[in-house]
């Protein structure tokens, strides 16, 4: 069951303000001058003070996964031989404005952190439980998007869906939690969100049957040996990359007190598979590309029944060497069709 409403931009701004008293609101935000190159902005997920901080015209460089899986998270503190579990600084619930691909992306994270091996990751869970999805309707693709091919362009997993128009906002509200608020703020309307149904970028996935083991060591991957510079941007910008490393640190003057944290890691980064004693798996960048590619469009599906990649295209947006993941998938499929 859902109800729909129309709010003027002003009414929406007021509602936003009202929501801010009870919730933290997060969404893509433009941070002036924080881009990689001087004089460029950075669009990333951040907490928003007002509705006009919501950046709707540019894809965010990083994904909303930071809200459930921050780049750096303290697991516990140690004081001598005692451990104290890290608590969250507050227990606010979070409303996050995000697009369907990212909702699907977080679904992939759920499978890793909440389901894999039957273990629930408590740090992920406590952040995940406080999220409320306000879905930004996405009817047109940004550059490099291929969500349709990845079947991640649609979702029904949201509490509120929003269409932002020139001077108004149309919303569909599902469930009871937010209905009254929106009903009071705006007037009844007929609105159901639409989903992008075609992207300029399409990928054709190789099927399991056409994937011979020989492709693992095929020369196909060699071009990435010299093209990839192992900067890890494809991993850090990806909504579904979930790998991490734990590190310990101790506080300046103390030999007894410190903490254990986990930080993002990525399969393209050096050191990801270094063993104590010096052995390294996947030394070549091409092997890393192969590892990532198969994980995103093959291994994950084998384990969880759905592809990991949601086609948000951020890896293509951010690669400084212009390596295109969607092109890689298509080249791989073409090669496999032609036979090795």
């Amino acid at each position: 069951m859902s109800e729909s409403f129309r709010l003027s931009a002003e009414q929406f701004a007021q509602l936003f303000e009202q929501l801010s008293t009870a919730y933290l609101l997060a969404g893509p935000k433009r941070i002036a001058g924080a881009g990689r190159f001087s004089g460029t902005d950075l669009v990333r997920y951040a907490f928003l003070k007002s509705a006009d901080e919501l950046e709707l015209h540019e894809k965010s460089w990083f994904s909303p996964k930071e809200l459930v899986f921050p780049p750096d998270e303290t697991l516990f503190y140690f004081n001598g031989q005692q451990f104290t579990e890290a608590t969250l600084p507050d227990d606010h619930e979070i409303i996050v404005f995000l697009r369907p691909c990212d909702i699907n992306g977080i679904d992939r994270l759920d499978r890793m952190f909440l389901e894999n091996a039957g273990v629930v990751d408590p740090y992920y869970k406590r952040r995940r439980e406080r999220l409320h999805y306000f879905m930004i309707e996405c009817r047109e693709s940004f550059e490099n998007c291929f969500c349709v091919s990845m079947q991640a362009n649609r979702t029904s997993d949201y509490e509120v869906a929003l269409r932002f128009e020139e001077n108004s906002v149309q919303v569909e509200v599902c469930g009871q939690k937010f209905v009254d608020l929106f009903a009071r703020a705006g007037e009844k309307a007929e609105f159901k969100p639409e989903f992008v149904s075609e992207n300029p970028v399409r990928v054709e996935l190789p099927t399991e049957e056409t994937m011979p083991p020989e492709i693992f060591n095929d020369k196909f991957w060699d071009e990435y040996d010299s093209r990839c510079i192992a900067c890890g941007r494809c991993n850090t910008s990806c909504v579904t990359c979930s790998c991490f490393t734990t590190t310990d640190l101790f506080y300046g003057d103390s030999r007894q007190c410190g903490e254990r944290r986990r930080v993002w890691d990525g399969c393209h980064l050096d050191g990801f598979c270094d063993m104590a004693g010096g052995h390294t798996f996947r030394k070549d960048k091409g092997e890393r590309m192969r590892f990532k590619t198969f994980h995103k469009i093959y291994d994950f599906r084998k384990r969880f029944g759905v592809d990991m990649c949601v086609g948000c295209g951020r890896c293509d947006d951010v690669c400084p060497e212009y390596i295109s993941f969607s092109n890689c998938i298509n080249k791989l499929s073409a090669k496999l069709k032609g036979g090795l």
Partner: protein
Amino acid sequence: MSDRNPYLPSPVKIIGLRQETDCEFTLTVAAERAITPGQFFQVSLPRIGEAPISVSNCGPDWIEFTIRAVGRLTNAVQGLRPGDNLFIRGPYGTGFPIDRFRQQRLVIVAGGSGVAPVRPLIDRVVRGELPVKSLDLIVGFKNRSSILFSDDLAAWKEKSRLVLTIDKPEEGWNGETGLVTEHIKKMQFTDFDDLQVVVVGPPVMMKFATAEFRLLKVPSERIWVSFERLMSCGLGKCGHCKIDYTYVCVDGPVLNYSHAAGLID
């Protein structure tokens, strides 16, 4: 969430320390855990870090870890003494399929520090807790000074056909020499019905040893290997040990070769 937080380690007291070789040592800690041979723990020291270490033996109220001092953590652990605390969580992973080994002809090939994870398995057989039809052991080390568990090896010899080999001849060494693969070659199998083969060691050794057994027509399903990978969680979360769709920390470290053979890092 405290009571169920799987990332929080528990302090355990070190009750024994034994130097095995120049760079390997065995720590015994007081802890009661139900462990299947082949499983591992995430062992840590606050401020230094955490690493997966396989159980090299265990009893009802003690666990042994045999550690090679090659990394930041393992070097720091080397400095510990009985009475100090070590921090552990586990046991993790899938160990050896003990029940499938019952009343079988068991062949175990282990190389170098790969002897550690199979030691509790061998011990169960030697102590009579795991009855088998026969036990063949091929244990290889690089050289004389890297031989681990000398006392155990003597005890194992009583209850098994043991081949102890070092890679190259050495002065004062009268025993077997050559890589384990050369000793596998000498084995003969006429049927495989009740045969189970375990191969554990460095990646290259496992690759060639399993290949030898395949040449001897041993079916893949009857060969078991144990993988060692970098891990940050032991819980199937951190992603470091993933190969293909397999997570070594939960699906392994002990894997049937029919599965393991297809895994390419």
